[in-house]
């Protein structure tokens, strides 16, 4: 025998799954929502998205190359691309570009790379950056253009109230008639409403969800537990007092769908076991309802997810999978 054999431990085969397959899978799932944002918000959406994605990729590359001096570059793994897309999805389409770049620097530089890069961050980079921008630029971050204006509008776009600010006002004043001004559920499902770029069309996000479930990128546990919790909690409140919006409106409005499907399911910052994921999902749902109803901001999704992110290590520590043999005596 002249040629030498490779010797390694088993297993000798691999499923073929890869980080790239999962990350680019998420990117494909984001496409319908991306196209909707272009359709409803025109040029502004295109410019903001491009700025966000390019600056996220740039900061990832720059930090790896010049600050960490790593030989392997990680910008091709797709995670910075997702952060860029998701950050853009969380912004209004008329926001000044320098703010977008600042947000990208915070997401990649502070939230992701200081913790050690992919797999090490405690908080979802895009959401942490959104929270940072909401506090730093409160006016620009809460002025939303009305959907469906002409293509060329960007900074001069007409702005208007979002469904969530109406809901908040109705809840505060106890005046249920304010809720009549809400767009119809169909409009909110399709995305004909004001809000952040990527969050307006629940339908587009649900298409992305179905795609990710069918490819096994995520499981149903997190998105479903969030949506069901919010639906149930707001449903009870609506029955008790009609000044609270109906549960259908609640789950279709704001960043709920976007958060439940794409933000809370982020691998790195969500729990590892299915049981832990359910707890995490219910916690996010309840926190969202509490913040939406009693907090200072009309939208509570992003803060709810960030708070739940902080609890993820604790959940992992206490939610162990069901060990084989632990439930002995049980029969099928």
């Amino acid at each position: 025998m002249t040629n030498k054999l490779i010797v390694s431990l088993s297993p000798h085969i691999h499923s073929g799954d890869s980080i790239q397959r999962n990350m680019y899978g998420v990117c494909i799932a984001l496409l319908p929502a991306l196209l909707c944002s272009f359709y409803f918000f025109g040029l502004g959406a295109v410019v903001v998205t491009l700025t966000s994605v390019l600056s996220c990729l740039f900061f990832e590359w720059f930090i790896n190359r010049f600050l960490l001096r790593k030989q392997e570059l990680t910008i091709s793994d797709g995670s910075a691309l997702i952060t860029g897309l998701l950050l853009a999805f969380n912004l209004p389409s008329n926001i000044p570009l320098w703010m977008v770049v600042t947000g990208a620097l915070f997401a990649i530089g502070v939230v992701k790379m200081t913790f050690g890069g992919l797999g090490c961050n405690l908080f979802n980079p895009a959401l942490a950056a959104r929270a940072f921008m909401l506090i730093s630029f409160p006016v620009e971050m809460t002025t939303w253009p009305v959907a469906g204006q002409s293509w060329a509008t960007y900074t001069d776009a007409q702005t208007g109230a979002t469904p969530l600010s109406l809901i908040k006002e109705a809840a505060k004043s106890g005046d249920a008639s304010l809720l009549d001004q809400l767009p119809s559920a169909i409009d909110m499902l399709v995305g004909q409403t004001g809000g952040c770029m990527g969050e307006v069309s629940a339908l587009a996000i649900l298409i992305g969800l179905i795609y990710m479930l069918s490819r096994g990128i995520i499981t149903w546990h997190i998105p479903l537990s969030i949506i069901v919790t919010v639906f149930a909690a707001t449903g009870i409140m609506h029955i008790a007092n009609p000044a609270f919006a109906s549960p259908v409106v609640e789950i279709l409005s704001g960043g709920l769908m976007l958060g439940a499907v794409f933000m809370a399911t982020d691998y790195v910052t969500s729990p590892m076991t299915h049981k832990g994921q359910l707890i995490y999902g219910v916690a996010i749902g309840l926190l969202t309802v509490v913040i939406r109803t009693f907090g200072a901001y009309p939208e509570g999704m992003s803060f709810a997810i960030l708070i739940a992110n902080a609890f993820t290590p604790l959940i992992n520590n206490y939610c162990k999978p069901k060990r084989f043999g632990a439930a002995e005596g049980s029969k099928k």
Partner: protein
Amino acid sequence: MKTFRIGGVHPEGNKLSAARPITIAPLPQVAVFPLGQHIGAPAKPIVNKGDKVIVGQMIAEAGGFVSAPIHSSVSGTVLKIDTIVDASGYAKPAIYIQVEDDVWDESIDRSADLVKIEDRPELTDKEIVAKIQNAGIVGMGGACFPTHVKLSPPPGSKIEWVIINAVECEPYLTADHRLMLEHADEILVGVALLMKAVGVHKGYIAIEGNKPDAIDLMTEKAQAYPDIEIVPLKIKYPQGGEKQLIDAVVGRQVPAPPALPANVGAIIQNVGTAFAVYQAVMKNKPLFERVVTVTGKSLAQPSNFMVRMGTPMQQLIDLCGGLPEDTGKVVGGGPMMGKALINTDVPICKGSSGVLVMNDKEARRGQAGPCIRCGKCVTVCPMGLEPYLLANGTVNEMWDLLEANQITSCIECGSCQFTCPSHRPLLDFVRIGKSTVTGIIKSRVQSK
């Protein structure tokens, strides 16, 4: 169809040799018999250099109760007692025999006539176990645990079922599949003998759904045996794992070590073992040949052979068209749990179910990346463990954490590493952690 409840993966079947009947491999020139080809004490040689031996003659006796004797598969002259690198990669003592002619021990019944269990009503359970022990039969699925030990369960455990493992969940391997198609009657007698040996009245033969022809044939033949039931199972790896199989077939889970399958009332035997039991008890033929699948995508003709023990794997590869130019790895066993071989001179032993030839591209692992905490390893682990945690704990030498998270329950099936999108060598780390923690537990028990 039934299956086990926790975790599992779906590797591609790649049963390339499923349609190839078992052919008899030619005798080797020199047969080599490693003395430690089973779990337990190695066998002790009872022949010396220059001795003449015949087929079926015992050449090494059991080294204790948990051990098994070894019989010559060939006739000829003992060349030497030396070492050989076996599938584990270590040099182990072995008996070398120069093959001359093919002279069999006359007490072996070489006819193809089926001996049914009714034909030998005088056989007692003790006799059956003794014959199995003297024939050197060990678990032929690859674990090589001496069969007579399994058939002598600890006192106090009540055995209810014999479960025959015909799952063959490892990709590529088809030895058990072909054995069922070609020797169904003998296998059923073997199962009946095993049931009689432990005094149970319920036997199951578990077969995965990717072998419908074997399920049909065995179901038809088993109609003559009211106590034996064929159980088709949903395709999922590692269904052939002893604990997973019991869970799949009778819905009971064996508790964490040191509990044994016998504690929940089950005894598991491989289908190849059942065939060997038939031959040993009814035909007086010790275990010296077995079915081996020789396979791989780059091999000219993947095949199944009836092989005499001690035949070098290279000879079988040559029968399939030779080792291809681009060979990167040769695995003894299947791709999920088999051992990569250092060279192809390794002889076929009692536990060699297959030889898998992989090309250079298949043989290389992917570049490992960071853990992205996707949790897929946790989802697929059939023991309900957290492989990512166990691997990290090993890297950081957190032995207490590993013990608390039941690292010793790991069955080393490789599902976690197979699944990891980041190509992390999870099982490599878990093995290190598991052996370290096992050592710590042992020394603690001893110091008490």
